[in-house]
């Protein structure tokens, strides 16, 4: 399925703004992303399997509420949003 990558993570995808990844849950999807782009999952999910505080995951424009077990369908589109607040 298609995964939209936010600017702060483009260094992991060699500047690709949209990539393909597989998985029947968000957990599996992010693990597949990490297999293709090593290190990217840790930028999204911490060591306690929690979505980082300033990251949001959307499935077909609906916020996934940080539920990594949420089921996915092959034609879903995933958007990763990274906040850029701060000074």
């Amino acid at each position, binding site marked *: 399925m298609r995964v939209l990558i936010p600017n*702060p993570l483009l260094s992991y995808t060699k500047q690709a703004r949209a990539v393909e990844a597989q998985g029947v849950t968000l957990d599996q999807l992010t693990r597949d992303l990490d297999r293709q782009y090593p290190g990217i999952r*840790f930028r999204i999910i*911490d*060591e*306690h399997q*929690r979505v*980082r505080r300033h990251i949001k995951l959307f499935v077909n424009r609906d916020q996934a509420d940080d539920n990594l077990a949420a089921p996915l369908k092959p034609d879903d589109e995933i958007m990763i949003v990274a*906040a*850029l607040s*701060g000074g």
Partner: protein
Amino acid sequence: MAKSSLHKAAAPATALLIATRKGLWILAGDAKRATWKLQGPHFLGHIVHHAVLDPRDGKTLLVAARTGHLGHSVMRSTNRGRTWTESKQPPVFDPAHDARSVDHVFWLTPGHLSEPGVWYCGTSPHGLFRSEDGGATWQGVNGFNHHPKRRDWCGGDKDGTPDGPKVHSIIVDPRDPNHLYIGMSGGGIFESIDRGADWKPLNKGLLATFMPDPYPEYGQDPHCIRLHPALPDRLYQQNHCGIFRIDRPSDMWIDIGRSMPKKVGNIGFPMTLHPRDPDTAWVFPMDGSDVWPRTSPGGKPAVYRTTNGGKTWQRQDKGFPAQQAWWTVKRQAMSADGHDVPGLYFGTTSGEIWGSKNSGDSWKCLASHLPHVYAVAACAWR
């Protein structure tokens, strides 16, 4: 005798690794420390807490970096910063034993000379990690992270610095890779003689004015601890509550800050030692009165030097602004080089780099307009 042996080896060039709130810069000097060239930024936009060159090979650089939103990491270069890779396994707490998450890596220390590839790092919140592959992967030093008394030693959220509680000043005894010291803000100083398997507090004589018992077993706030490389039984520290020295095997710290001028006080963040003379050390005092402005006292920056192990201190401010300069120097941001007459360097909270070729007698601004400087490390740049 060959002619070449009559001459001393040429002094190596000195470089300053400058870790800032917005990235890493390298200020490369020539062998005479006369001209300096600023290189960078590396990791622009990352908060860089520490950058250290491995003295064992002279080319491996490790950098403690994070962004504001995407977590922490350790960046690695094996060619003095020409190319970089990210740690494959950054330091993280074991979820099976610890509900905490690492917020940032704060301190990096190369391991013992006999253990190439070994590094230690200290994190916020309090965590100690070791790498045995040059920083590519990190494992918890669980003798500390899982120690049954760690929570007592470290306290809670109210016991850390404004930027979070942290492990810093990781020191490996140059005579023994099993002998380690760490500092905790807050928590105090702890010692291990078994490569981190167990730890004991080493805080006798250390004042903690903010505790009900001003001399507790632990809970102090050391800001920066340094072991003297030529006399490894001697350690100095700049503490939240003064300046102290210890000469092992004694376990009692000696208060050497009382001879500082009362108007300046004995509070500060960094402490730097002479590379060869165990009696010479430098501090950079800051205003620790009232609500702790953490600025140069009175807006008049100065370094203070002792040449007798802390019995007396001399002010060194030639070249600094005489007034209205309200910057200070963070705990990792002052460093000495290894020249015969050591050079001293520090970075300020206002983004300036100052240097002295004559051990602090006079100072010159080497770079300005950088972001808030967190760390400066002088190293031989061959």
